[in-house]
């Protein structure tokens, strides 16, 4: 897919976002100097291994981090820095303008309220739509996501499987037609075929309402299939960003290359060594202890640099937005 959105205006700009947590074991540096743009109508996938800081970035944007978190940087949405907003204003933005789908649906849904009512509540609170009408709209949204039986809306979350609850979460996030949807591992708990169907439906609804999607996932194939651009995170930092198909076929950063080599079609080649500690991360490039192309200067932190695309991915009139954090470039 060549991205028609490469030059679209940024809707959300994340600038120098750093998040750390005070813990009894020490200061966990969960995200460091994270910068990216989410453009109008695009799907941007934030990919990386578990624990690399992807979900922390999402929670920071939504101001949903716990009290022991310290946040620096800016998250500019529609001219406002979300990180500087008060709780009242942020509560209005959450759900109606920026919605989030969490990775654990059974913890996010109220177990003693019928699912239809939970979805309809969003419409009643944010848009003042009547109870009957909002319940009807909730049922319609559930049926679009494959929960077609009429009685579905009057069931409780504990009567659903994890996959069905995940679809309820997706319906809840999309019912208000937000401008940005942040989906944190939305396919978790769904088996292969169902995951594909739900994600395709989610992408379709997203296009219909003209929203942008920030997809947070460790499923590289899902990210390749549905995103326009992809940002690869390692140990709290974005190490590479570019068009998804380009990152997949021509990875620049040695970590991206190693991660893609773990895929089944590339023979399950493991990355040597283990993930570094987030309390005492390696100095310089954080991947250098595991990197096959390590040099002396990797002990110093490389800056994010723009790289020209080659071959079929280069465009004369289009900014390709390819960036990498590595001394090789």
């Amino acid at each position, binding site marked *: 897919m060549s991205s028609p959105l490469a030059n679209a205006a940024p809707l959300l700009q994340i600038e120098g976002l750093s998040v750390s947590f005070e813990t009894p074991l020490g200061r966990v540096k969960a995200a460091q100097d994270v910068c990216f743009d989410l453009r109008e109508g695009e799907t941007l996938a934030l990919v990386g*291994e578990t624990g690399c800081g992807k979900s922390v970035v999402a929670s920071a944007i939504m101001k949903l981090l716990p009290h022991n978190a310290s946040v620096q940087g800016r998250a500019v949405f529609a001219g406002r820095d979300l990180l500087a907003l008060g709780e009242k204003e942020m509560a209005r933005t959450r759900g109606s303008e920026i919605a989030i789908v969490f990775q654990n649906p059974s913890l996010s849904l109220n177990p003693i309220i019928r699912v239809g009512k939970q979805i309809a509540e969003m419409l009643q609170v944010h848009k003042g739509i009547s109870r009957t009408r909002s319940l009807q709209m909730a049922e319609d949204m559930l049926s679009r996501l494959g929960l077609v039986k009429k009685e579905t809306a009057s069931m409780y979350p504990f009567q659903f499987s994890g996959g069905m609850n995940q679809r309820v979460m997706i319906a809840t996030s999309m019912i208000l037609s937000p401008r940005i949807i942040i989906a944190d591992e939305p396919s978790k708990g769904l088996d292969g075929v169902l995951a594909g169907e739900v994600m395709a439906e989610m992408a379709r609804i997203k296009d219909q309402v003209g929203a942008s999607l920030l997809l947070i996932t*460790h499923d590289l194939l899902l990210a390749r299939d549905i995103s326009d651009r992809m940002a690869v995170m390692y140990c709290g930092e974005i190490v590479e960003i570019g068009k998804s198909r380009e990152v997949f076929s021509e990875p620049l950063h040695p970590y991206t290359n190693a991660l893609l080599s*773990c895929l089944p*079609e590339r023979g*399950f080649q*493991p*990355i040597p060594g*283990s*993930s570094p500690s987030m309390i005492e991360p390696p100095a310089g490039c954080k991947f250098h202890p595991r990197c096959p192309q390590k040099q002396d200067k990797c002990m110093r932190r490389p800056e994010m640099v723009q790289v020209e695309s080659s071959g079929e991915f280069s465009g004369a009139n289009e900014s390709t937005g390819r960036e990498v954090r590595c001394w090789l470039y």
Partner: protein
Amino acid sequence: MLAVLKAEEVGKAYESGLIFKKRHIALRGITLEMVEGKTLGLMGVSGSGKTTLGMMLAGLEKPSSGRVLFAGEDIWRLRGREFLAFRRQVQMVFQDPEGSLNPRKSIERSIHEVLGLLKIPQREWLKRTGEILEMVGLPEELLCRYPAQISGGQCQRVALGRVLLLHPRVIILDEPTSALDISVQAQILNLLKDLQQELGLAYLLISHQPEVIRFMSHETIVLERGGIS
């Protein structure tokens, strides 16, 4: 090739209801053979009976019909020492690596628990623990940590290490990598392959991921609605 574990026309049915009994057939007429040094892949959609079959082969569930044979003997006719020997030699690794370990025991205590059950003298524990950590590729500094303080992949390696202490001949792997990241999945699958080559283990690999089955298995069977399709 030596068949270590066999299922002969194995079936499993469950009953529900207090007064009006209803019989649900989970598995019917399954026949298969597991051979030393080979991996048998077991595929099927959720609810097709994969895990039930694995549990019956591991002797954790009794079949409603048919027999499970270990070294030619029906496992449910084995008694005393013979049954214990079967239990040691046929082991199972589960999907959720953290759930496989006691959260209140350090990794060292979890490993020592197995050595204690095997009645290995305490003076040998340090050496045996070191050997097993090396085999599954874990550093010794993890020993003092608890399951919640290590990664999912490291937990799965500890679970595998505990199983290897028993010198099994057969390991039933129930979705051993489906809860892990792609990078950790690659590490664990390669480790399993190396261990099989080194120790001649027979694996039953239960998975819903065709690519994992293709990478690991010498032969594959597909379950559909409780039978082999």
